């Protein structure tokens, strides 16, 4: 099937089109259609994975449609091993996300519509082999977020303080509109940087093309590379939550509705990291090698600083959001190592963190929906009334802190091993420390919320997981464990891609010659 990738990518968008035709009053139909779209895309992803020849590696399932040939723009879809892994992640998250949003009551038609459009964009990014199309899908994936958070999000109070406290009132800091606007603007500033980098690559590729394969084969002048790489790094890095451009993430994730948080933290942030890896590291490797120590240093700051910030939060969603900042630091750290272990770990961490944070947000959403509070100090003993939630939450915590047997461990271990083996082995130290701080804050939260005497007040009759709500915990939870025990499932794909791209890096050959 030659258009499998296109179908996988378009299925959610097509479902969105179908949604347009369904009256908003037939609510079940809306949901079922959305689910069908999501499931088709997941099935497509799985099919892609089965078709992909891991031994062969490289780009497979190529599908090209010329779009604007005069400018060298083609709709060129193909998938590499990284792409396969991330496609699977996206499929799983969207299916569970749709199921987790079953109870969205407000303007549900628009909600599902936007959600599906967004997901198509995400798929598109992972399979685009044309820089321009890549960017196009990237924007599609980023923008619906504005409405999704702005309309369906939640607001809370953030007291003003500090030297910039005077700006609080004007922006209504803490409101969902603020979160949505900040997120969108920061990410689009990032896109602006990407756009400029794209132009630079395009104009310096002798052929004036956006074709990534051609760009890969092009040796760009080092001066160009040195401009492109930081632009790509910070541009995509903003979405990956790179310090100090991460501040959209806590507010955004805290304000977003459940499925959106799941998708955003679970998949969208990966787009950023994927961009840095796929475009920054692969297309401009020489500059990347020069910048890698800086990228790694910042990533290390991310890991530790994100974890510390998370430890100081009192709002459950903020904790999870900051933990994403921290974990994406691990991904960036892996990317910065520029060796196989690090890159494998980075992509594995993308998947692991995606599943883990998806699970987190799904559960937090469940808790919030029932308890109507996210302040952990107000909760307690919830394990008595919602043992399933408690159990899966604990599982997510464990993956978050990198416990062996969960996907988080495999990923973090590879990243740290890659870092230790790389040019700056000291990065592993703050990285591991960050994992320890994670253990502190996740378990403290887990303890406060779920343990303790049975709740007697308004929380006494909270319901446990119901019907469709089972999907997210069950699927994501078991995947965490499966990928934790059997990394080969994914790693074969990821490694195939990493090896392919690494082969092009002269610097890596050098680094590996040093270590036995």
């Amino acid at each position, binding site marked *: 099937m030659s258009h499998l990738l296109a179908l996988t990518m378009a299925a959610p968008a097509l479902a969105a089109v179908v949604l347009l035709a369904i009256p908003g009053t037939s609510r079940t139909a809306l949901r079922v259609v959305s689910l069908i779209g999501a499931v088709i895309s997941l099935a497509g992803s799985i099919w892609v994975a089965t078709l992909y020849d891991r031994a062969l590696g490289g780009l497979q399932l190529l599908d090209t449609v010329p779009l604007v040939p005069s400018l060298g723009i083609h709709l060129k879809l193909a998938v590499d091993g990284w792409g396969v892994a991330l496609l699977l992640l996206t499929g799983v998250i969207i299916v569970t996300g749709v199921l987790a949003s079953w109870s969205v009551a407000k303007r549900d038609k628009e909600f599902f519509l936007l959600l599906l459009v967004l997901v198509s964009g995400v798929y598109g990014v992972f399979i685009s082999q044309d820089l321009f199309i890549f960017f196009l899908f990237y924007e599609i994936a980023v923008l619906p977020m504005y409405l999704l958070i702005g309309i369906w999000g939640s607001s809370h109070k953030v007291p003003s303080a500090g030297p910039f406290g005077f700006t609080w009132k004007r922006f209504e800091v803490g409101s969902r509109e603020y979160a949505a606007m900040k997120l969108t603007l920061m990410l689009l500033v990032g896109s602006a940087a990407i756009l400029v980098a794209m132009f630079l690559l395009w104009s310096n590729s002798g052929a004036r093309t956006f074709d990534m394969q051609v760009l890969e084969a092009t040796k760009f002048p080092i001066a160009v590379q040195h401009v492109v790489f930081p632009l790509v790094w910070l541009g995509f890095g903003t979405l990956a939550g790179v310090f100090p451009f991460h*501040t959209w993430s806590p507010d955004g994730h805290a304000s977003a509705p459940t499925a959106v948080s799941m998708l955003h933290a679970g998949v969208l942030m990966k787009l950023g990291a994927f961009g840095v890896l796929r475009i920054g590291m692969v297309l401009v490797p020489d500059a990347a090698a020069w910048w890698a120590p800086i990228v790694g240093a910042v990533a290390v700051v991310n890991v530790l600083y994100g974890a510390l910030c998370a430890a*100081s939060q009192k709002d459950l969603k903020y904790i999870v959001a900051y933990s994403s900042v921290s974990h994406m630091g691990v991904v960036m750290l892996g990317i910065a190592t520029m060796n*196989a272990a690090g890159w494998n770990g980075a992509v594995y961490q993308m998947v692991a963190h995606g599943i883990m944070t998806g699970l987190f947000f799904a559960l937090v959403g469940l808790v919030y929906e029932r308890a109507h509070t996210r302040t952990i100090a107000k909760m307690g003993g919830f394990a008595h009334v919602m*043992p399933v939630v408690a159990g899966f939450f604990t599982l997510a915590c464990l993956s978050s802190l990198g416990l062996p047997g969960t996907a988080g461990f495999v990923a973090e271990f590879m990243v740290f*091993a890659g870092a230790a083996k790389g040019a700056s*082995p000291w990065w592993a130290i703050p990285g591991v420390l960050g994992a320890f701080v994670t253990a*502190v804050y996740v378990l403290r939260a887990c303890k406060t919320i779920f343990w303790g005497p049975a709740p007697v007040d308004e929380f006494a009759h909270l319901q446990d997981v119901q019907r469709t709500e089972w999907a997210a915990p069950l699927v994501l939870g078991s995947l965490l464990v499966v990928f934790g025990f059997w990394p080969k499932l994914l790693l074969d794909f990821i490694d195939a891609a990493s090896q392919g791209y690494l082969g092009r890096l002269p610097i890596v050959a050098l680094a590996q010659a040093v270590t036995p």
Partner: protein
Amino acid sequence: MSPVTLAIVATVAPAVAALLLLVLSPLRHRGAPAAWVTLLGSLVSLGAAVMLLVARLGGAPDARATIPWIEERGRAMAEIGILIDGVSLPMLIIVCLVALCVQVFSIAYMHDEPPRAFGRYFTLHALFLFSMNVVVVSPNLLQLFAGWELVGLTSYLLIGFYFAKPAAAQAAVKAFWMTKLADMGFLFGLLVLYVSTGGFEWTSAPSATVATWVTGLLFLAVVGKSAQFPLHIWLPDAMEGPTPVSALLHAATMVAAGVFLVVRADPLFALAPGTREVMLWVGSITAVFAALLALVQHDIKKVLAFSTCSQLGYMVAALGAGQAFAGFFHLGTHAFFKALLFLAAGSVIHAVHSNSLDDMGGLRKKLPLTTAAFVIGSLSLAGVPGFAGFFSKDLVLTSLEGKASWIPWAMLLGAAFLTAFYMGRLLIKAFWGELSERSSHAHEGNVAMTGPLVVLAIPSLASGFLGGWLATQSSAQYELHLGLTPVLASVMSLAGLGAAILVFRKGGQAPFTHVLEKLDTFSVVDRTWAGAYRIGLLGVASLAGWIDRYLIDGLINFTGWSALEGGSSARRLQTGLVRDYALLVTVGVLVLVLIGVLR
């Protein structure tokens, strides 16, 4: 079946049980079936282990099999597998046997729990046994680490089994944090080993410097897991868990994993004398320190907990002395008698519904079998000649002879006295003397409770005689020789018991009780850690949180604010007066002309 298959069966059987229970929630929620599934799993494990033993006795060689786990470029970056040799096989048997006993005991002990909790309890037990077996059979340090963390997890979940109790919740989290803190050492050690040797084998021989780094870092983890000073503080708190759990995890098996690690990684430690020196001292200090604190505990389980710390100190000291086998031997005997003691304590607690020694007294009449078990365990622990503990403790002490410094040796001898002394105190307070009010209603539990006591009492009595065989298995030298140390040790233990009878029979107090109680209640180490946590971690975290919200994010808000303000103030240029508009047209033309002409 081949040894490899048997080993896999032994390892995986509890995992299958755990998985069944996790997936088939009705099974778990019903309670009793869960227990049977778990027991079956343990039984299969034990059976496989015994078959392995039989095969080995029949002359079967070591068995090792690995498969790649994390692959890179078609090459295994990390492997998992099994290794059955003279160290892992005895350990496997000990673990499975003790676990089975404890699980059987638990059926009676946990009988009053609601079915769901009961099921959860046994699920966790199955999970624990699996994790522990992963540690035991691991062929390399990475898998050992994985199992190590997993037992940490089950420990956390089991300590927090009574999660409704805030103290239990706190204790569980604390245990996890303390061990996790130490485990960073393990991870760093692994990374160093990986970078310098490209693998995770303990047989790889890196340079002395690397070995020192690796072992030093590994030892950090040992300090945490085996509750050595100053990371021991989690262990007494861990007694918040159900008593059988304390018996299995926090006395017999899990806490000994640290010792097991050092025994396994002995080739590496052998390259690092510096690390061994540190271990020697840490072990000795812990042995004495914990023994002193055990003297003033009023909670029967806490006495045993400190005793565990102390005994682990012995083992670590032996390892530090370079006598891995001595440590391992003591590990084995200790596993039996400490499990026995804990289960007996559990039986007592079950009978009197209290942990406090003050609520007990005269139980000897009500609980004869328990008392017997307890006495056997105590004597073994105290190192009374003939009991299992005597042989292993003697070996530990002997191994310290002729070291550069005699102080550790002396300390451990002193600790031997203290051990006998506090066990004597415990026995007297709980089982002799007047029958207390709570004790008067006490009665023995059913066979599920007493059976394991009997089963465990046997090795507590006799396992000392297996030393020779064990030594040959791990190619170490062992012979019982009569020297100064065994004699002194016997004297010390008997003296300790005697002193205890003298002091406590009349309800007296140990000398320096006051000081020790102050030390216990003030708990310097605990407070130091708490302070470090509050200031070093939470304080810094709050600072980071503030900076993020109010400085970094503030700056971003400020950027946006400036743009908006800029727009607002620029808007004033739009005066609305037509004259100004016309003038601006002129200015514009003028500027354009100037640009063009002056270009």
